[in-house]
Structures are given as structure tokens and as C-alpha cells.
């Protein structure tokens, strides 16, 4: 359990340093920068979900007045196969082809050409003047079709990976994965009760409110500066360099403020195109996606088809569990079926289980990470199945989970033994929460579910500068999506022992600070925070040395307490302690400016668990679900900025509720998305939601100086099943598929009634 630690500023909720600029409209987001001489780039997109490109003629567009450059697939270097590395992951050649189609278009909205012109309107007219001749092919639009042995192929060169032997013919199954332990047949024989279910969830979009945008300014020696909204400018630089076969040193990436990402801004779409257009046009090129383009051509989360089977003894002990899961990858391999498979049973201590997972190509946009990629879908299936199991056993659903819950030392389904984790703490907190026992209105239902995410560490850099008046500037390389500057300032202030207001954090560009992986994977407060703490410790060591030199004593005779250097007890008692400001003021005489730095590859990100409680009321006539109450309980390890931790939990809950109740990609028979706008792809609005109650559980992560686990992703995992279980409780019928939209609910009620 969380031991009581006395922190001065950690765990408080001060105002973020970038806040005033964000409430007054000053903060510059991706589309907010304009440069002199700037022109506008637009992308021509495929009107077909699957077709061969026979011919592209851009000559008419090129000849138009006000058009400065036109590019298509042939202008891009041949990209080799190879791993991108880092967070965005995947294959370079796939990434390159996703940015600009070469011989085939693989989804409706796939880029085939781009122009840069004097104005957006001229650019659009130029797009209309580009002639593309297609040979239309049959699109592969769903998992069942894609996995059939006679399916048309999305990629003729796709041979299933991870099989013991390379298959003799290509298929749409890009990769398989298996996990298992024990003997499931025997396990099911020991079971008194078995539940089985089959769950389908359509693709859903991250839905950040800011569309992708960038400006590239390429000079005549080929060097380019790119401003863009990104979750990680260093990785964007790496991807752009690889796609364009450029020297990384010739690219400078500056991260603008970012209007949401949730994983969707971990991969490049526009940036390499803008660099090329700018190179040809000799001018800065600004590119902004429309909302429709964001829906049609940037990564949604995988649509899935998942089957689970769970067996248990009468006392609730699970004796065996199996899962079969197919994940839509979109047009290129790389669906998050791995984390899906590794997370499905992660909260439970299972002796016998088996998981089979498939990464499946379909003619839809290439999926991108979306908060805890893979886990919401797989855990939805398991958590719904457990709800049914609890019903069959006549057991409280929290007790059933407690009975099987993983704990410190449990061997996780994905291999290692868990260090200290907060699952049981969260389950107990849920059980004791007043919202769990409070009476429900007539006809309403309550559901619970568990969420889990691994969290990651990865590489981060940070520098800490002590300004001449003793104020502190923290420089790091992670775009601030949800208040991370404030968290960095809090950790720096705590470590140095100075007030929060004395510290400011800025995000350096790729030329002004060290490499950092993306803001994603719930890693920023954990890993970059660790780098900031280490850099502050570096400063403290330097300050102690400076004080020792000032006083003429040994360094080990100087302590650092409450933000100042003090002599150790018994040493030179008459000297006055030196504050950061004192040391800074005298820095020129003691060795020059104070600069602390740290870079690391953070290890030991702690797994994070959550429990959600959802209360819903269902209108049996219309099928509309009203969310009456929602409670999010999560182990944060340690909450650095309490309000922003709650914010992550509430925001994730809202996204999960949207996915559970409304959000889905709807396609026609030709593979054209039918709801590519916020009117028809309806994300939760203020009037759809209640207040979201949060309880932060703190089981400190032993690998972080302040116990941080990372909180950003877990919150989206449990709401899907918690909501589905609440609807089940309210209507008395298990509806397996999502979203639980009014037509689906009405149909289920009608079917059950007839």
C-alpha cells in the first residue's frame, strides 16, 4: 500500500505554465503558424478502396497559374523494407506507401498525388485537374471475408509471419501470434461452469479535435525545417528521413502545441509530402487536413472480432480460458493484436489459457495506435464474459475478479512475474466505493469491468538550466498534450526543493534538446519525468560543489536541503546557507552557468490497472442509453499533478463510453466510409455525459523516483465492458457487439421479446 510520503508540491494541482496562452488564443497549434511567401499543399485521394493505378497525368495541374509544385508516387524514393523503430513502429516501405500510393491504392482516401499552390482554392482546382486512371479491384472490407481462403488479396506479397514455416501462398493474414500455458482442455474439464461469447467491435477514431497540420520549409541545399503537431517530433524526423531517404541532420522538426493525439499523431502522413512539395516549390508549404481527410485516411483503432471462452469452478476459480482474436490492420500490416493478446487475461492468475491472434489486412485506412492499443477490444470480450460467469455463479462480479486477481509475484500471461501492482487495491476500492452500493433508479443497470495497460519507458532527455536569478528552466523533448509541462515543473520543484512557480518547462525542437521518444505509451511523466529528476540531481551535485568551493570545505560537507546548500552539522557553522539564486548569482566565479542534464532509456514502467463502475438507464422503446453515473478507479503509482491525472481518467472514460455507445466506422459495399464527419461520427458531447467520479489509487512503482506508473492509456480500457455490462444489467439481455447504439439495442430487445 502507498506509504505516507511527505511531498511539498507533488500531488497538488497548480496552474500549468502554458495555461494562459491556451485560454487566450495565443498558443500556436499545428495550423496556426503562417510564414512569409508560404503556399498551400493539398492531397489528391483515391476514390476507390482498392484499385491499380494505371496512369497519373499531372501536366494540366502543373501548367496552372498559381501552382508551384506537384508530386506523386514516382517522386518519392523507393523505400526499402525495414523497421521504423520507436513508437510508431511498422515497416518503412509500408509507411512510405501509405503516405503516397505507388502502384496500387488500398483504401478510399489513400493519397495518390499532391500539389502546392498560391491558395487552398487554387490547390483544390489543381487537384481536380490531375488525371488518374484506375483499374478497380474488389475491395476486402471485413475480417470474415479477408480471412477466407479464397479472399481477394490486399497485398499479393503478404505471407503470414510468425508461423513455424513460411506459408506457400500469400494471404490477408499478415501475422499470427499465440500465447498459452498449461492444458486448457483439462482446465475446461475441471470447470463447473463455462461461458462463451463472440464479440465484434468496429473501428473507432481517436477523434482529436485538431486535424493534422504542418509547414515545411526546404532550402536549396535540401535542408528542411518542419513545424507540425505531433506526439513526437524526433520520431517524425526519423520517419520523414527514412521515407525521403534524407540525412536526419538535414531535417529540423519543431513541435507546435498539439490539439490531441491519443496515439493518432505518432506517425507521419503529411510531413514528408510537404517537404517534397516545398523542395520543388522553393517556398514554405503549409498542409492542413480537413476533418473528412482525418477520418478517411488517418489511423483509426482496429475493428475486431474476438471469441472468448472461460471455465470456472463453483467457487469462482477460473480453470481455463481461451481467446481467438482477429484485428483489422487496414491496408498495411501492424494491427495491435500483440498487446491485445497479451492483455486479454493480464489481470488474472490463470493456470491454463490459450490465445490466438491475427493481424489481418483489409482495404481500409492503416490503423494507428489509440490509447492502450489493442487492449480495449480484447478486454471488452473477457470482461463481458466474466460478467456472464459471475451471473451464472451467482457471485458478485468484483468478488469473482478478486478471487482470480493477479498480484505481486503472479506470472503474467505474457511471461514475467508482476512486481507490486495495484489491481487488488483497485478492486477493493471499487467494492468499498459508495457508488457501487448506492441504490439504482428503477430499471437502471450497473456494470463493472477491469482495465489494464503495460505502460512503457523508452528514451528521454532533459536539461535543467539555472537562470541568473535562480529560476529554473527545464528543457525536454515531449510535446505537452495534457499538462505534462506542469508535471515536469512539479517533479523538478520537488527534487530541487524550490517553489513550483520558480520552474518553467519548455519543449525543445530536434536541434535544441536530446532525443526523446513520442509522448505516448503513458511514458512522458514516467520516463521524461525520470530524466528531469536526474537532471535536477545533477544540478544539486553541482550546487553542492559550488557551495563547497565558496566555503572552502569538502563537497561531502555540504548538504542540499529545502532548495539550498547548507553546511553539514558541525561544519563551519557560521556560513549562511546558499540558495539557488545565491549560487546562480555567483556562478561566473565558481565555474560558469549551471546546466544539469540527463538522458536515459527508462526501464521498469509499471503496469497499471483500473476498475470502472458504470450506471445506465436504457429506454426500451428507442434504445437510447443514458449514462447516469460513471466511476473510474485507477492505480497511478503516484499522481504528480492530481487534477491532470483525474483528467486522463475522465477523458479516457468519455472516449470509452463513446466507443461503447455510439462510435463506429460505417462503410458502404465499395469501402467508402459513410460517416466521415463529426455530425455522423458522433463523439460524446457535454450533454451525453454525467460527472465522472475518480478515485486515484497509489501503489508506487518502485522503478520511478516518485513512484509514477503512467496513467494515460489504461482509462480507455475498462469503459467498454463496464458499459456493456451495465446495459446487460438494465435490459436483461447480453448484446455482444458494439456500439450499443439505439438500433442495435432495439433489435436485441425485439428479438428477445419475440
Amino acid at each position, binding site marked *: 500500500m502507498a506509504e505516507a510520503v511527505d511531498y511539498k508540491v507533488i500531488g497538488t494541482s497548480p*496552474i500549468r505554465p502554458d495555461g494562459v496562452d491556451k485560454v487566450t488564443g495565443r498558443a500556436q497549434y499545428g495550423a496556426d503558424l503562417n510564414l512569409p511567401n508560404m503556399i498551400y499543399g493539398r492531397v489528391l485521394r483515391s476514390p476507390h478502396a482498392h484499385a491499380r493505378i494505371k496512369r497519373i497525368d499531372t501536366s494540366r495541374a502543373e501548367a496552372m497559374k498559381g501552382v508551384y509544385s506537384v508530386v506523386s508516387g514516382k517522386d518519392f524514393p523507393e523505400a526499402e523494407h525495414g523497421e521504423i523503430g520507436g513508437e510508431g513502429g511498422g515497416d518503412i516501405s509500408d509507411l512510405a506507401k501509405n503516405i503516397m500510393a505507388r502502384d496500387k491504392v488500398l483504401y478510399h482516401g489513400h493519397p495518390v498525388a499532391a500539389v502546392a499552390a498560391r491558395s487552398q482554392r487554387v490547390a483544390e482546382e489543381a487537384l481536380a485537374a490531375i488525371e488518374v486512371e484506375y483499374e478497380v479491384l474488389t475491395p476486402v472490407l471485413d475480417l470474415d471475408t479477408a480471412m477466407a481462403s479464397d479472399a481477394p488479396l490486399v497485398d499479393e506479397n503478404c505471407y503470414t509471419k510468425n508461423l513455424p514455416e513460411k506459408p506457400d501462398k500469400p494471404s490477408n493474414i499478415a501475422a499470427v501470434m499465440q500465447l498459452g500455458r498449461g492444458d486448457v482442455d483439462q482446465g475446461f474439464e475441471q470447470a463447473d461452469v463455462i461461458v462463451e461469447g463472440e464479440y465484434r467491435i468496429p473501428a473507432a477514431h481517436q477523434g482529436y479535435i485538431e486535424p493534422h497540420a504542418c509547414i515545411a520549409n526546404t532550402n536549396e541545399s535540401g535542408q528542411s525545417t518542419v513545424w507540425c503537431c505531433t506526439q513526437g517530433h524526433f520520431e517524425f524526423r526519423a520517419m520523414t528521413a527514412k521515407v525521403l531517404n534524407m540525412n536526419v541532420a538535414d531535417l529540423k522538426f519543431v513541435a507546435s502545441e498539439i490539439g490531441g493525439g491519443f496515439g493518432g499523431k505518432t506517425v507521419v502522413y503529411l510531413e514528408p509530402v510537404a517537404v517534397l512539395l516545398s523542395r520543388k516549390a522553393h517556398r514554405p508549404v503549409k498542409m492542413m487536413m480537413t476533418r473528412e481527410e482525418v477520418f478517411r485516411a488517418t489511423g483509426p483503432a482496429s475493428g475486431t472480432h474476438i471469441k472468448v471462452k472461460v471455465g470456472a469452478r463453483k467457487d469462482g476459480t477460473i480453470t481455463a480460458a481461451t481467446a481467438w482474436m482477429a484485428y483489422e490492420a487496414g491496408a498495411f500490416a501492424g494491427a495491435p493484436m500483440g498487446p491485445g493478446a497479451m492483455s486479454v487475461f493480464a489481470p488474472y492468475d490463470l493456470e491454463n489459457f490459450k490465445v490466438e491472434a491475427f493481424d489481418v489486412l483489409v482495404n481500409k485506412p492503416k490503423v494507428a495506435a489509440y490509447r492502450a492499443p489493442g487492449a480495449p477490444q480484447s478486454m471488452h470480450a473477457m470482461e463481458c464474459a466474466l460478467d456472464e460467469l459471475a451471473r451464472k455463479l451467482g457471485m458478485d462480479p468484483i468478488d469473482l475478479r478478486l478471487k482470480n486477481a493477479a498480484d505481486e509475484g503472479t506470472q503474467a500471461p505474457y511471461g514475467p512475474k508482476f512486481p507490486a501492482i495495484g489491481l487488488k487495491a483497485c478492486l477493493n476500492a471499487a467494492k468499498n466505493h459508495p457508488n457501487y452500493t448506492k441504490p439504482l433508479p428503477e430499471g437502471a443497470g450497473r456494470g463493472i469491468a477491469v482495465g489494464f495497460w503495460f505502460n512503457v519507458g523508452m528514451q528521454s532527455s532533459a536539461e535543467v538550466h539555472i537562470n541568473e536569478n535562480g529560476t529554473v528552466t527545464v528543457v525536454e523533448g515531449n510535446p505537452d498534450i495534457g499538462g505534462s509541462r506542469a508535471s515536469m515543473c512539479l517533479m523538478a520543484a520537488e527534487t530541487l526543493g524550490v517553489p513550483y512557480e520558480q520552474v518553467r518547462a519548455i519543449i525543445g525542437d530536434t536541434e535544441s534538446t536530446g532525443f526523446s521518444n513520442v509522448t505516448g505509451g503513458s511514458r512522458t511523466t514516467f520516463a521524461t519525468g525520470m530524466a528531469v529528476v536526474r537532471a535536477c540531481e545533477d544540478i544539486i551535485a553541482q550546487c553542492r560543489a559550488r557551495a563547497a568551493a565558496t566555503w572552502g570545505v569538502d563537497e561531502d560537507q555540504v548538504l542540499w536541503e529545502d532548495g539550498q546548500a547548507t553546511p553539514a552539522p558541525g561544519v563551519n557553522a557560521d556560513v549562511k546557507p546558499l540558495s539557488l539564486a545565491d549560487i546562480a548569482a555567483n556562478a561566473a566565479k565558481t565555474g560558469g552557468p549551471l546546466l544539469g542534464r540527463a538522458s536515459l532509456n527508462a526501464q521498469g514502467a509499471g503496469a497499471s490497472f483500473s476498475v470502472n463502475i458504470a450506471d445506465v438507464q436504457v429506454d426500451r422503446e428507442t434504445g437510447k442509453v443514458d449514462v447516469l453515473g460513471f466511476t473510474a478507479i485507477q492505480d497511478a503509482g503516484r499522481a504528480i499533478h492530481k487534477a491532470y491525472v483525474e483528467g486522463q481518467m475522465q477523458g479516457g472514460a468519455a472516449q470509452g463510453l463513446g466507443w461503447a455507445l455510439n462510435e463506429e466506422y460505417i462503410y458502404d459495399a465499395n469501402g467508402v466510409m459513410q460517416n466521415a464527419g463529426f455530425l455522423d461520427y458522433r463523439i460524446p*458531447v457535454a450533454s451525453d455525459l454525467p460527472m465522472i467520479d475518480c478515485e486515484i489509487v497509489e501503489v508506487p512503482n518502485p522503478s520511478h523516483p516518485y513512484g509514477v506508473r503512467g496513467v494515460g492509456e489504461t482509462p480507455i480500457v475498462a469503459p467498454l465492458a463496464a458499459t456493456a455490462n451495465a446495459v446487460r444489467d438494465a435490459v436483461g439481455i447480453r448484446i455482444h457487439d458494439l456500439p450499443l447504439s439505439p438500433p442495435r439495442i432495439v433489435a436485441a430487445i425485439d428479438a428477445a421479446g419475440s
Partner: protein
Amino acid sequence: MSKVQVTTSINGEEMEFLCEPQQTLLEVLRETLSRTGTKEGCATGDCGACSVLVDDRLVCACLMLGVEAEGHEITTIEGIATDDGLHPLQQKFLEHAALQCGICTPGLIVAAKSLLEKHPDPDETTIRYWLAGNLCRCTGYDKIIRAVQDAAKELAHPA
């Protein structure tokens, strides 16, 4: 295409600009006048990121033409703070951590200002329905609602 001259007032300042007849007020604000505090989330009237006040009406700037601004008073997020400092809504958004990425914030603050002018003491439901046209993907709205409630209190009884 020949441009039209438009005379208007933006945040209390007389302003003249030239715009193409088909340009939206949002495009004019952002690209012609470099008032980029007003954001674009969809350009189809579905997200509220572009909320501005036209006289005292709450409007999506992406659904109004630039030429329609003629003779009207436009208020954008850049015009909400005063010489005395931040507007209570801005202050309360900061205090309540009612923004994460912040892209929805300008629109929400403008919309909330309009709400409080019409309903100085709104209940939670009123706030939720008034702000239902302003999408926020990060916060789940909880802290936004609380910030607006607190700002309403502050405006009624200035500290």
C-alpha cells in the same frame, strides 16, 4: 475572383479587410487577419472550435461568410481578457484544469461566455446543453462544467 471589401469590428477594433465572396469568417480570421486563436476542428459546424460572438450571438465562424461580418461586432477568444486581466472563465478553466490539449478551449470559453450572459446562474444541465455544440475529446467535460459553474459564481459575487 474579385475580392470584396468588408468593414467590421473585431474585439472592439474597427477593421477593414478584403475577402473572396466564398471565404468563411473562420478563414478570414485565421489566414487573412492572423487571428489564430479561433480554431478549426471540422469546418462543417460540428465541433464548435471556431465559436465566436457576432454582436451577442454565438456563431460557428466556419458557417458564416467573411462578407457577412460587414457592419457587425465580432468577439473572438483574443478579445475575452480585459485590461484587468483574464476573464473569470479563463481563470477558472486554468484553476480547474479544464483543458488538457487546449484546442477546444477558445471555443468553449467563448460559448460559455455567451451562456453566462444569457443565464448568469445556470444549473448543470443547462451548461451541458449549452456547451453540447463544443466538442472536447480530452477531458470528458467534467472539469469544464465545474469551471463554468465556478466562473458563474465568481461573476455573480466577484471576490
